[in-house]
């Protein structure tokens, strides 16, 4: 069994899921918004890299892509917050209202991208709705310098971005005043506001980070996958939601672990099932969702909400 490639895929997917899943949990924790527009951050990140690549004559550096994607993703996220989520939060709406508003946003962003792709396709000739892998020039240079050309480039890209962002996030949240204020805002806005933390600005910052970091997973994606489509965010975000829910919509570490586990299940477990048990990989979604379902039912997550104190089977104490 060709376990090597399966492990590579699981590895890259772990980073992609972590980079897009953690911000999802963070945004829910901060603002209680089920953001269904989250996939557009991934997609926009990927498309920023693609468009930059095309504009720069198919020679793009990872650094350029990362910076552009981070800024664009962050801005889209911030604008979304300022124009839609913040006005809604002033009116104390239910989470379902946020959800539907974010769905509306998803439609807008997604189809603006389709329009942009069509116009760009006319201008540059490439099919933007299905774009080939992008190779990053500077990563190639580093690879040549270090004589590690035989390692797939996406491994290096994913590791670089993933490790950097993880460390940065860890330091931000655990070692800096700003991060502690951010966490405080995330956990209890009222309390944070009373304590003199400028919550409004911090929530803006959170949204910027959410969009920016999520967009980076798109930057890894275009380097990894053979093709990028406007649906890429949608395909990835399902697993983000699964991971976020397993993490109780609260815990960043559990979300990260759940992301890795999901990446392993989707890649390794399915390959094993297929090879040793003849199970067709077409059941992938059923397996992922079945497992999430089983986890949620077997170990209801504590955190954002708990189950009802109700026992279907009567239990009494030991004598």
């Amino acid at each position: 069994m060709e376990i090597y490639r399966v492990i590579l895929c699981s590895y890259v997917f772990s980073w992609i899921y972590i980079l897009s899943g953690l911000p999802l949990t963070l945004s829910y924790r901060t603002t209680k918004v089920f953001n269904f527009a989250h996939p557009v951050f991934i997609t926009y990140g990927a498309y920023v890299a693609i468009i930059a690549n095309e504009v720069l004559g198919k020679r793009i550096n990872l650094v350029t892509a990362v910076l552009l994607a981070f800024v664009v993703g962050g801005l889209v996220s911030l604008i979304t917050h300022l124009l839609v989520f913040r006005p809604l939060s002033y009116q104390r709406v239910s989470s379902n209202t946020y959800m539907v508003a974010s769905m509306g946003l998803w439609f807008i962003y997604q189809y603006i991208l389709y329009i942009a792709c069509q116009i760009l396709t006319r201008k540059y000739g490439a099919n933007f709705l299905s774009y080939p892998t992008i190779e990053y020039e500077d990563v190639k240079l580093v690879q040549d310098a270090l004589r590690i050309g035989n390692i797939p480039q996406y491994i290096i890209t994913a590791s670089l971005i993933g490790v950097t962002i993880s460390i940065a996030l860890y330091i931000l949240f655990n070692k800096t005043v700003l991060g502690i204020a951010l966490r405080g805002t995330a956990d209890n806005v009222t309390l944070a506001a009373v304590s003199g933390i400028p919550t409004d600005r911090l929530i803006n910052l959170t949204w910027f980070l959410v969009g920016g970091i999520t967009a980076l997973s798109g930057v890894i994606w275009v380097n990894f996958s053979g093709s990028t489509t406007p649906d890429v965010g949608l395909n990835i975000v399902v697993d983000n939601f699964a991971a976020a829910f397993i993490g109780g919509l609260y815990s960043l570490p559990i979300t990260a672990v759940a992301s890795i586990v999901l990446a392993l299940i989707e890649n390794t477990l399915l390959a094993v099932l297929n090879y040793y048990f003849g199970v067709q990989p077409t059941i992938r979604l059923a397996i992922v969702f079945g497992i999430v379902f089983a986890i949620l039912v077997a170990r209801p997550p504590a955190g954002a909400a708990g189950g009802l104190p109700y026992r279907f089977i009567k239990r009494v104490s030991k004598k």
Partner: protein
Amino acid sequence: MNKGASITSGKKLLAFVVIALVIGLAIGYGVGYYTTTLSISQAPAGAERVYTLGVTFALSGAVSSVCVQWTPVVTMAIDDLNNLTKSMGLNIVFKPYILDDASTPDGALKNVQTLYATGVRIVIGPALSSQVKAVKAFSDANKLIIIAPCSNSPAIAIPDYIFRTQPSALRESKALATYAVHEGIRSVVSFHINDEFCNVFAQYFKKYFEESGGSVLYDMAYQAGQADYGSDVASLASWVAKLRPNAVFYCGYDTDGANVLNHAADEPVLRGVRWLTVEGFYGASEILTQKIVDFARATNIIGIRPVPIANPLYDEFVEKLKKYGATPTLCSENVYDAVMIAGLAVLRTGGSSDPEVLRRALIEVAKTYYGPGGWGLFDENGDRLQASFRLWTMAFINGTYQYIDIGYIADSNIVVEKVLG
């Protein structure tokens, strides 16, 4: 919370919504009236008569990357039709009415209903067989002519108002199976996307291949609409390493195809077998990368596609399409033929909107139509009768990566003209 205010504003809203709806309905009525008069009724003498051809393509969603490349083809075909009418001195102008169905059956049905309501009597599209099935009942009931350019499902091979310019998958699979046996391939592992188009190919390829003495050692499908197929390719590699087939039969589209081939190119095991495929990812620009073309040469990947050889019309079509900023992809010649046959049928009836008249005209026109996709003749089920195919592969020629045709299959005669190293 201010209850009272929200209740009174509710009343205002009610008024607002009702007014909006009335206006909306009025617009809808007006538009319906406007477009129908334009497309159907007799305009004053001397003025142009506009005939609208409905188009519903999956311009967003799962298969959008293929379908967006069909819109230039439609534009081109409509231009050709209008040049024709002009040169004939007719004052009919054709106009496309392009709608996006988001790759969903539901979207296709809604679009077809809208198009029909605006007076359209011939619809080009939808792309997927599942969408064609969803519009079938509506087409049957209202006698709306549907010309599907890329549906190959034998389940819709029924005499009705649905025509298909994509030849049946049966003959194509049979031709590919014959080719495989001819090449000395005795065993294959089948690997395809789990969707109707490719499942049909896989099913019939297996049938005909096994009838000719070959064997399909393992049939593996991967789920459409995933982010990535790396692990599925790894599983395929495991099977190939274990079962040691002569070849891999592959069916996929451009997006998933690029993904699969990219991963496959990294697998030494998969470089060591022949690859056979159909027209699924033909023409996709994202597949023409150095990595994949190298892989294609290493495995001598051969695809089949339903275009007859020695068809100068096809070469002309490719050349002309370049001016519209597009290259031929999956089914694009069928799209062109669909629009042309529809337009010619309309001209033959003199702009009629009677479905029966149109249907008969369509069948008659197709009998004498020869386009880039070959002879237009439909069989009794309204499916294109076409039994000659091209064999294609990818190569690096004259400094560019490109798709090239290397031979053809006609009536089970196999001719391979070019042999690439």
